[in-house]
């Protein structure tokens, strides 16, 4: 498909602005290069973007069992209310008394999420999960420093963790200590006990973990860290499995981040904007980024935490994303929140039970909201890899599971159906998975060649990396 720069004609434009009604002023040292932007009519423009949108696959287009990403349905009422002019037309630096509704959105959402997670205070400034991790780790750093404990320079991360965990720890100035997982995919408690010491700043953990198992030793794990003088950080990527049922705060975690764009139904937008809200226990609240929203008298105001690490972003966060999460929280409420978690776990176990017939499970036990299959044996037998199965799914209108993650499982496919899919959808998807397994044995070449129905076939990533073409270079 042509690039937008290859369409239109010089001089073509939309009629957008009236003539300037004041004397025109020009800078003394003006731009000298031509401004190379598309020159199209409105009709051409909308056709171009319509064509692009037809080459995008969203949750609205079909089943999206992308492990660790919680691709649940994104309710339309969220979008409608977040688009109200009373939210979108508000300048972030308006006087506090003119933005009481915005402040209350933050205050209400904070109260609901604190209750769900067992935390005492929250910031919505982080724009995404990784940004939240960075923020949470800085809270840990500031806490130790404030106590005069400068020796705590290490963050413990299990080898099953998301790549953001170690990357965030390094950005926050820590060194990373990797601890191995046990045969059940959970933290090896003995290895953990051996790894902690006076240099332990904290532990980062996802629970349920990245193989979809709730770590039954969680209380012992957080106790080991606390006894060593460290703090416990909860990566909220998998909260959807347990929200309303178990609280990270009760597991012994001191600071958490949530992905409102996963667990709380705000859309991913093709990779953002998200919201990586960070919650913490009361003793860490003085370190939160400022400003935070506080209730005062009958209204709300901004306040600066006493020992704040400083802001991690301009203004207050991805505000309209938070509006969407609030709409979701108010809709589901006390019963709906745990109901969602229960059905996420039910759906995952159902799919696992059906697929177990053919596919090898990396951890063959009941799972939480997601499960990991290992296609190592299938690949050995037939040459068909996890990648091939994933590409075969594309030809069947299904977004593939997360591939090759976690790193501790070979030929991994991580499946997370979410609670918003019906049994019929799950059954259809299972049929497709099982059919592809058969096809791997009868016609492996067809799967090596997949996909064939998509706008392009498999793309050469090596070429892209070796000879980077990162912008349109002109006709």
């Amino acid at each position, binding site marked *: 498909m042509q690039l937008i720069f290859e369409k239109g004609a010089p001089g073509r434009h939309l009629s*957008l602005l009236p003539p300037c009604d004041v004397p025109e002023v020009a800078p003394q040292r003006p731009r000298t290069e031509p401004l190379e932007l598309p020159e199209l009519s409105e009709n051409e423009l909308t056709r171009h973007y319509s064509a692009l949108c037809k080459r995008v696959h969203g949750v609205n287009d079909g089943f999206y069992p992308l492990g660790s990403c919680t691709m649940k349905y994104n309710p339309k009422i969220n979008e409608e209310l977040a688009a109200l002019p009373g*939210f979108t*037309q508000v300048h972030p630096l308006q006087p506090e008394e003119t933005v009481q509704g915005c402040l209350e959105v933050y205050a209400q959402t904070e109260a609901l999420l604190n209750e769900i997670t067992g935390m005492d205070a929250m910031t919505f400034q982080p724009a995404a999960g990784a940004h939240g991790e960075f923020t949470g780790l800085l809270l840990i750093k500031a806490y130790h420093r404030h106590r005069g404990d400068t020796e705590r320079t290490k963050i413990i991360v299990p080898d099953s963790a998301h790549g953001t965990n170690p990357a965030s720890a390094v950005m926050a100035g820590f060194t990373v200590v990797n601890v191995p997982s046990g045969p059940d995919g959970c933290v090896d408690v003995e290895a953990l006990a051996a790894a902690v010491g006076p240099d332990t700043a904290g532990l980062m953990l996802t629970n349920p973990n990245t193989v979809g198992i709730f770590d039954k030793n969680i209380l012992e794990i957080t106790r080991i860290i606390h006894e060593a003088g460290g703090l416990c950080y909860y990566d909220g990527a998998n909260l959807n499995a347990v929200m309303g049922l178990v609280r990270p705060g009760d597991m012994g975690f001191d600071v958490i981040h949530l992905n409102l764009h996963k667990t709380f139904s705000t859309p991913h937008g093709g990779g953002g904007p998200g919201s990586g809200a960070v919650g913490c226990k009361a003793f860490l609240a003085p370190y939160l980024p400022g400003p935070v929203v506080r209730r005062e008298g009958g209204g709300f105001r901004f306040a600066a935490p006493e020992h704040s690490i400083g802001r991690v972003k301009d203004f207050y966060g991805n505000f309209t994303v938070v509006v969407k999460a609030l709409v979701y929280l108010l809709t589901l409420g006390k019963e709906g929140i745990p109901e969602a978690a229960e059905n996420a776990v039910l759906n995952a176990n159902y799919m696992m039970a059906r697929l177990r017939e053919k596919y090898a499970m990396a951890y063959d036990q009941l799972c939480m909201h997601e499960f990991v299959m290992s296609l190592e044996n299938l690949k050995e037998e037939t040459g068909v890899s996890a990648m091939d199965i994933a590409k075969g799914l594309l030809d069947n209108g299904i977004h593939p599971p997360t591939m090759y993650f976690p790193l501790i499982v070979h030929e991994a496919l991580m499946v997370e159906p979410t609670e918003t899919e019906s049994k019929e959808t799950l059954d259809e998807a299972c049929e497709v998975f099982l059919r592809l397994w058969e096809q791997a044995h009868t016609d492996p070449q067809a799967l090596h060649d997949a996909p064939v129905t998509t706008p392009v076939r498999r793309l050469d990533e090596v070429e892209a990396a070796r000879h980077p073409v990162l912008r349109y270079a002109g006709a």
Partner: protein
Amino acid sequence: MGSYVPNTPSQRQAMLETIGVRTVEDLFASVPREMLVGDGLKLPVGRSELEVRRAVSALAERNKVYRTVLRGAGAYRHFIPAVVKSVVSREELVTAYTPYQAEISQGLLQAIFEYQTMICSLTGMDVSNASVYDGGTAAAEALTMCRDRKRAKAYVSACADPQVVETMRTYCFGSGMELILVPEKEGRTDQEALRSLLGEDAACFYLQQPNYYGNIEEAAAIGEIVHGAGAKYIMGVNPIACAVLESPAACGADIAVGEGQPLGLDLSFGGPYLGFMAATKAMFRKLPGRIVGQTHDAEGKVGYVLTLTAREQHIRREKASSNICSNQALCAFTAGVYLSAMGPQGLRQAAVQSMSKAHYLAEELGKIGLPRIHGGEFFHEFVTACPKTEAVLRALDENGILGGLPVEGGILWCATELVSRQELDRAVSIVKEVL
């Protein structure tokens, strides 16, 4: 209560049977009993769509929406063509994940490739990434790009947006880079101070253009000072101003960053916005975050993929150049649609009209006793002295006008192409009444 769970009780029962357990509780057997909250959560009961609509609309109504906005300071209300929202509200786009599965994500990947090209065109730089969270984090990430073993000090103009500076400080608290402010002199970066401050350990200097006070800096001359000291030159620029001001590339910038909100994004109480980041060829491998590249498919057809991923956290883990994962993809898409709709003529008009209206406002305010406190050129923001700041802003507020932002020394005003001469005249006459 509201629910998005489609399965009926009988379907759930059938599923439990397939799994081989009796109840849903059995699925949670691995969770220690004592940890379950049971009925203990203090949450309100769920509500119907109509009830939620009422409750949240009431919150929106408690905010004041001004007819006229004369305040910027990092967030700007510009004209947004109707076509922008029509395109970016398409649900396949809104509900898609990051385009890891390239074959079914060509639309998104191509749009980001086009966005990258437009950012390169605006800034004159060689390579753009696919966006970061906002202008502040873009500036903070740029400092890290410049660090090496011998050079770990980041110098930042005191005339940069204070929020951006604070964000950079927080990132430096993480990375251990030292941040040093280069002082202001009469509303602009003190070039003599800059020259004497930059030493052999200077990694970079960050200049905001136009600066926080709206003043246009001598960016090319400053670039020469920075490069003379062997440091990297980062420019934080307003993307609309790029249409008429000397480009960062022409000023010698190694990295150009900025807040992309003026490119078709609503004010939205501060977010979501997007940070754009572009660099020279020499530095592009240090860019954080996602980058889209062109390639070919198995049949030789042109296509797009996320590329150069060896920089990124999911491959490199603790050795990654940044932890960024999700960025602001939909906002970058929006900026691309905005720039395509405006085109070179429209964007230049938006820039020229913003600058011209700000100058008109400055002149009219000057006539009634609110003179600019700085000399020299400015773009679409400027600071005036004001004897009665509070009374002036209150009077404007009562007339549906958001006046400039109170800052040290007076008021920081802003005008864009969105305000008419009539609105400006009205604002000035209201101010005159108060004085």
